[in-house]
């Protein structure tokens, strides 16, 4: 019996030791382009889903008003678009992160399969489920680039953005128009949009110096 228990202890220690040895070997994936480790995304997803089940609020967003959706669109364009994109525009960096930033306004692909909080494949409203997106925006997601917005946006604003994403397949025309890519959207980013385009930055110098 003593030997058996000793064996259990040794066995339980062996795995973490092997994992640490692998990680510090210099061969472990560290670059964003490296392939995912086996089960990596499933394991990460499990922890997240378990938290949603416990903490994410339930709210039916299918009836969100147009002004609220518009407000959500303005916040989205300011705080989210640089990674999560617009219906007609995908940021360059989105796929170059690991894990990649999902394109929230581009249904149906790029949303990690079944994770949509509301709306079936045809856009038919489902019974309200815990609002994972509200939780994601409020708390952020560890080990991704997703920041927590709880000190940046109010709860109402987080709901507006959550509603925008939940209703992305059936947005009123005004909201769709607000989500068109335009120079104004790029102006929210801290860069001179045209002049600093990759490869031809020379012209920006006079502007910034003056």
């Amino acid at each position, binding site marked *: 019996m003593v030997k058996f228990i000793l064996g259990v202890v040794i066995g339980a220690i062996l795995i973490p030791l092997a994992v640490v040895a692998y990680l510090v070997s210099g061969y472990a994936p560290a670059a964003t382009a490296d392939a995912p480790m086996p089960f990596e995304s499933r394991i990460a997803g499990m922890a997240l889903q378990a938290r949603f089940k416990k903490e994410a609020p339930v709210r039916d967003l299918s009836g969100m008003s147009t002004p609220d959706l518009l407000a959500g669109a303005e916040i989205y364009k300011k705080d989210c678009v640089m990674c999560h994109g617009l219906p007609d525009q995908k940021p360059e*960096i989105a796929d170059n992160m690991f894990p990649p930033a999902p394109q929230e306004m581009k249904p149906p692909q790029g949303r990690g399969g079944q994770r949509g909080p509301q709306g079936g494949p045809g856009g038919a409203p489902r019974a309200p489920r815990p609002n994972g997106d509200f939780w994601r925006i409020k708390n952020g997601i560890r080990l991704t680039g997703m920041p927590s917005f709880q000190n940046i946006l109010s709860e109402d604003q987080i709901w507006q953005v959550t509603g925008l994403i939940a209703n992305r397949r059936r947005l009123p025309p005004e909201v769709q128009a607000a989500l068109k890519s335009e120079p104004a959207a790029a102006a929210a980013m801290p860069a001179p949009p045209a002049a600093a385009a990759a490869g031809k930055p020379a012209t920006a110098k006079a502007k910034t110096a003056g």
Partner: protein
Amino acid sequence: MTKLILGILVGVVLFPLAVYAYLTSGYAPAAATDSALPLETFIAGTALFRRIHSEAPTRDVSGMPTADLVTGAQAYQKNCAMCHGLPNQPPPAIASTMFPPAPELFSQKGMVTDDPAGETYWKVKNGIRLTGMPSFKNVLSDDQIWQVAAVVSRADKLPPEAQDALKPVAPPSAPPPSAAPAGMPAKPKPRS
């Protein structure tokens, strides 16, 4: 001996089961605001450090001409500043609310001026898994990545021209007036 081996096998199976139970319990850290697991930062940092050391190129960028630094500063302004900040500016709101947080490369605390430029080059080129750091190898040219790496590794001693290129260009928020709904301030609370 048989019992010992049996015990090892049980232990080997038990450990992943315990990890699984923890992850699905709803208590595992998943929010960006949760604190780090024991040894998490150390193990991740070591993995990254070893990998970079085996791959990062060596190059002395101390003699890089000012024109290249200005180009690098402009690329930084466009691609990096939203997370890594600008000199003498408050840090971007999202930088500290990510996990792991984005270092402020022009603050005393976040500067990487002690790192070899090749290390920064590797990070910009390849990105860093499980952080928000993207890979820029499809976005910037190799020359541009070196220019950015040089700017960052010389953050505390840039020529005035490069510093000029790092001044904030656009006001932080300029929503199109027509579309902005009344009574919706962009940021209700000051950053804590």
